[in-house]
């Protein structure tokens, strides 16, 4: 694919400092990183190493204390609130560890509402959502509510929701942490397929060795610092 | 209505009574002089009883009417007035006995006593109030006289008195100014002022002629100061003094009887 090596995410010398009581904790320090289109990359490291913090900053849910984050060349610090919202809506897909589906909406509606937010016409929405749900293996479960399906199925809905808008990157924070290993494998299969067939760029965090084994690129974090960056 | 014409005489006469407790400004000398003159008037005027026939002419903004009345009096606090004309009111009688005033109404054949609330009401549609009928006997108790002028005025020798109510007197007038001829002691004019010192009405005397053995004014006219076009005039047709009258004439029972 022509856009294969285009940089989607660039982190320039990122530091994120939290203040915990009296002491300052550098959740991330002096991190430089580039994620390019088509990558299937994992951030790994022990708990507390800064994975979530990095993902949040890339997803424009958090701001670095210093340094610059760019998404498709746009410096996030230069964007206003509505541009940030539009960026999250149009260019980023989010998959959370605890799914975070809207509990009162059906699987279909959960996958559909960002499209509605984008202003996509209902007929088009329907077509796209049905296709995606079919792709993530939820055919026939469209009208189920989150509490009527399994954790794995819920995470599939979340993935469908993340990719239905064709974002530049899908950020997934420990997407398999809450499911059993069989389900985890299936989810990984799905994401891998989406990456390979549709060219969806994935960046996920994990400390699950099976996930790490599947990744094309493995970035190790320790105490908020880049420990290693390995292409497999 | 004897009350009205004789009021001057009786009033002046009775003013011989007040003594000591004088709280008004006039000098003792002027008070003494006033009392002296008033005593003279009293001697000249006062009869123990009277009998009169007079007509009363009332002119107001809204009506004009003439009545004829007959009146009797005895002492200072007994008097009786009966209407002779017009026919509609014939027989209507007012009796003053002490400080009470009674009216007999022939049409309803009822006698009523006028309450204090009615005292300032018009008497028989005239410019006199019911209070005027009973007032005279109180004057002497409530007012202190003082001579305020003695000498020539309009080519006449006159005496002017001021009658000022005692501080604690519950009276209608704030001041009365009275003018008499110095020689004959006949009344010329009385001016009544309210408590704020504003002139309220004026009583003028005229048509002096001999009645009941002495010269007296036969006409007396009252004019309210705020309505100078209105007046009530009393014209004496007959006056007798010191006539023999029974006390029973001045009883409620006799109100009904025709004379």
């Amino acid at each position, binding site marked *: 694919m022509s856009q294969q090596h285009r940089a989607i995410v660039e982190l320039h010398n990122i530091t994120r400092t939290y203040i915990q009581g009296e002491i300052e904790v550098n959740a991330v320090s002096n991190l430089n990183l580039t994620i390019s289109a088509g990558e299937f990359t994992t951030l790994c490291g022990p708990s507390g190493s800064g994975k979530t913090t990095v993902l949040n900053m890339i997803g424009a849910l958090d701001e670095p204390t210093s340094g610059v984050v760019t998404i498709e060349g746009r410096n996030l610090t230069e964007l206003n609130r509505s541009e940030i919202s539009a960026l999250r809506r*149009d260019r980023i897909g989010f998959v959370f560890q605890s799914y975070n*589906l809207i509990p009162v909406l059906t699987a279909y509606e959960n996958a559909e509402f960002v499209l509605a*937010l984008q202003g996509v016409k209902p007929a088009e929405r329907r077509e796209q959502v049905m296709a995606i749900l079919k792709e993530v293996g939820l055919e026939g479960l469209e009208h189920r509510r989150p509490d009527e399906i399994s954790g794995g199925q819920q995470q599939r809905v979340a993935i469908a929701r993340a990719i239905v808008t064709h974002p530049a990157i899908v950020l997934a924070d420990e997407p398999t942490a809450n499911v059993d290993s069989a389900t985890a494998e299936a989810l990984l299969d799905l994401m891998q397929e989406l990456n390979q067939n549709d060219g969806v760029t994935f960046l996920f965090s994990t400390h699950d060795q099976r996930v790490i084994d599947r990744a094309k690129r493995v970035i190790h974090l320790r105490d908020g610092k880049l420990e290693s960056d390995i292409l497999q | 209505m004897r009350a009205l014409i004789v009021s001057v005489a009786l009033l002046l006469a009775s003013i011989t009574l007040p003594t000591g407790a004088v709280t008004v400004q006039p000098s003792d000398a002027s008070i003494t002089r006033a009392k002296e003159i008033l005593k003279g008037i009293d001697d000249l005027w006062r009869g123990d009883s009277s009998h009169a026939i007079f007509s009363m002419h009332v002119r107001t903004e809204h009506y004009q009417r003439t009545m004829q009345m007959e009146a009797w009096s005895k002492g200072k606090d007994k008097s009786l007035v009966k209407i002779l004309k017009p026919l509609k*009111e014939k027989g209507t009688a007012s009796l003053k006995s002490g400080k009470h005033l009674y*009216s007999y*109404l022939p049409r309803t054949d009822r006698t009523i006593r006028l309450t204090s609330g009615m005292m300032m*009401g018009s008497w028989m*549609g005239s410019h006199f109030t019911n209070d005027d009928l009973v007032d005279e006997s109180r004057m002497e108790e409530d007012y202190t006289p003082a001579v305020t002028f003695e000498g020539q005025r309009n080519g006449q020798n006159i005496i002017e008195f001021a009658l000022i109510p005692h501080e604690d007197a519950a009276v209608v007038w704030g001041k009365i100014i009275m003018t008499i001829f110095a020689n004959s002691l006949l009344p010329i004019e009385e001016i009544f002022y309210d408590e704020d010192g504003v002139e309220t009405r004026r009583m003028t005397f005229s048509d002096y002629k001999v009645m009941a053995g002495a010269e007296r004014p036969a006409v007396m006219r009252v004019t309210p100061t705020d309505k100078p076009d209105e007046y009530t005039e009393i014209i004496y047709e007959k006056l007798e003094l010191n006539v023999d009258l029974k006390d029973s004439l001045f009883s409620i029972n006799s109100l009904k009887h025709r004379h």
Partner: protein
Amino acid sequence: MLMHFAFRNLWRHRQRTFVTIAAMGLAGSIMIFYSALMEGMLFASERNAISMNSGEMQLHVENYRRDPDLYKRIDGSYSIINKLQQAGFNASPRLYGFALAAAGTASSGVKMSAIDIDYESKVTKIHNHVMRGSWLSKDLPNDVVIGRRLARTLGVDVGDEVVIVGQAADGSMADALFNIRGILKSVGEEIDRAGFYMNVSTFRELMVIPEGSHEIVIMPKDGYSNTLNERLEQVRKLVPQLELLSWKKLLPAIAEILDMTDASIVVMILITYIAVGMVILNAMLMGVFERIREFGVMKALGFSPWQIFSLILLESQIQVALASMITIGVGIPLSLYFSVHGIDLSQFTSGFTFGGVALDPHWRSMLTPQSVIMPVGLLFAIATLAVIYPAIKAAVIQPIEAIHHQ
């Protein structure tokens, strides 16, 4: 799009939505009913006050009120009354005169009120306030109805005789003997002490006043729609030559009491509204804060703060709109029902007074536009105000914070 979301959210949270709407709707209905009851009470007090004697307005010649005088009369009062009747009013002529009344040895000043019975009965309800005996009759010219304190002063009762002495308009003596036909209940200081009602024809003969009247009392016919000020203006245009006074000028003390009552009712209504406002505020706060995580996720997925804010506001407005329907649908029929049937308080009290005015023990509500508009308007205002804080909070909250919010 937001509208669709709002409706869907409300529908999916239907249990909470229904409870909220029902609570608001019920509160609103109660507010309408309460307002209508208060309006009804005020209206009844006002009607009672003015229908006792003063009427809603009165006509006199210039200065009559300041200096009442037998000769200050309105000419052609019946043609004026005809004009007023055609314009939707009932009107009645009256004449007054002061005189002395005596019975036995007792006497007292009285204010004779001469009325035209047929006209008067359409204007005031004084004929309903006879304590003993009965009201005037056209066939009994020598019968009078007097105030209760006057009756006591004169020591008379129904069936007794009383003499009147006064001065007629021509200066002659006006005296006549009357039979006491009725004694009034307490209807006001002056009437109690000096009220002396008689037929107008009797009065005219007694006082030698063949024509004219001192006063024209006016009351709107039932079912009027315009305000007092508009009615005053209407009458002023019909009879510009006469002095027109409204009952507020005629009964300033009662007008003041009723104004004060009105103010205290507003305070009471406001207190009710504040209580209702708390309920709504709570419902709105809970509705938003329970869903804060949901809003965080929506923000993370691309909702702008403004969209979140609008969505929450929209949801609350839809709820209030539905609640208003309940408010109107329940409040209005309830108020209308009680405006016809009234609440019967007669078992608790034989008659009660309010602001010094005797009231019918049937307390009727009265539905005015104000008693609907105010509760509904306030419902919207309160719900909107109540939701603004949580809506802003949800709009500006950081998504990660919201997501971690449990």
